[in-house]
């Protein structure tokens, strides 16, 4: 994948979230989810535009179901913003770019 979006796995999740120098927006997604595909390019755009202020990370729930369960994810796409390693806000469902940025604004 081009651009600054990073990919997390069950084994790298905690370290990446805790050591990040910016808030991290984790996109819980899967291959079989139509709305996840719709927002993927939008999240990549946000990752590029907010580079240095926000890290966008993807976590495939098929590969890391335990991480999804740990954070109570019951619907995808779910995007959880981690600030200082802790969940600060979450968004459930695909939304237009402006709506996503609006919800993230206070953390950027």
């Amino acid at each position, binding site marked *: 994948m081009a651009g600054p979006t990073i990919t997390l796995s069950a084994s790298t999740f905690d370290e990446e979230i805790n050591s990040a120098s910016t808030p991290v927006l984790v996109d819980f997604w899967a291959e079989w989810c139509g709305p996840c595909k719709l927002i993927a390019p939008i999240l990549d755009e946000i990752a590029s535009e907010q580079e240095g202020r926000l890290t966008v990370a993807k976590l495939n729930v098929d590969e890391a179901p335990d991480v999804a369960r740990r954070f109570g994810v019951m619907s995808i796409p779910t995007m959880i913003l981690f600030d200082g390693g802790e969940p600060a806000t979450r968004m*459930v469902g695909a939304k237009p770019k402006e709506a996503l940025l609006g919800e993230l604004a206070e953390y950027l």
Partner: protein
Amino acid sequence: MSLDDLAGREVEVAIIGSGPAGLTAAIYAARANLHPVVLEGEPSSTSDQPGGQLMLTTDVENYPGFPEGVMGPELMQRFRDQAARFGAQIHTVKASRVDFSEQPYGIWIGDPGADEPALRARTVIVSTGAQSIMLGLDREVELVGHGLSTCATCDGFFFRDQHIAVVGGGDSAMEEATFLTRFASRVTIIHRRDALRASKIMQRRAFDNERIDFMWNSVVEEYLGESTLAGLRIRDTKTGETSTLDVTGCFIAIGHRPNTDLFVGQLEMKENGYLVTEANSTRTVVDGVFACGDVQDDYYRQAVTAAGTGCMAAIEAERYLESLH
């Protein structure tokens, strides 16, 4: 071409919506050299989104040409690629207002109160489709994503080895219930009548599935649980008795309503909100405005019939434009 470049310009064909109807219209209009502009909608987890209802389905088994079946999102990606290949301009935006009172017709994006429309079009093809109806119970919106779902394919995965409910008695309810048995240990279909209206093949699949059981003559009265769904209060419509069903997930598939709010006061609608078109045509009451797909179809509602009417709309738009010369 960006949307800003469209401002103040007049296009031949604007297509609002991008399900099978809108994108088929785009393929035909593009091949007819009409340079269609498609306003495909905005991302959402309802079926009012780019690609339409098929974006929330898994295997599509009845679309001709795919003997092994095809995933709904993949089929829509193919429609979109085919439209783009012939030069359709597809924009990921949602129309917020239309003005069909004079030619060329105005279409707004974003602020509906803006003085000038984002673009003007000599013909408009309306293919905004339909979206799932919810039950309208208390706390419904806040529970979506917390046990309550409108998208089995998005959320079924999270209910592995759990008991869940599907509300509805049509094809989509049977399809969702059958799909959900891949994950759930038990799926209870709650239906308000004592018989299904689903097609025979879908009924048989549900009846033959040992993980599926039925609650007939039953309606959901209340969602139970605090921040996450923990059960449903069910009322028996025959006896009036209420009971509790302990489920961790509930999927709603009770039907659809057309996405026609945008056209109130502009186009003729039936009582149920579906757009009225002339018999054997996609013409609406406004010359040069055509409607195709589920937004005008409360009877067939299939991807292939939507595509068929999308083709009709493009051909009718082309003939209408020729008649202006």
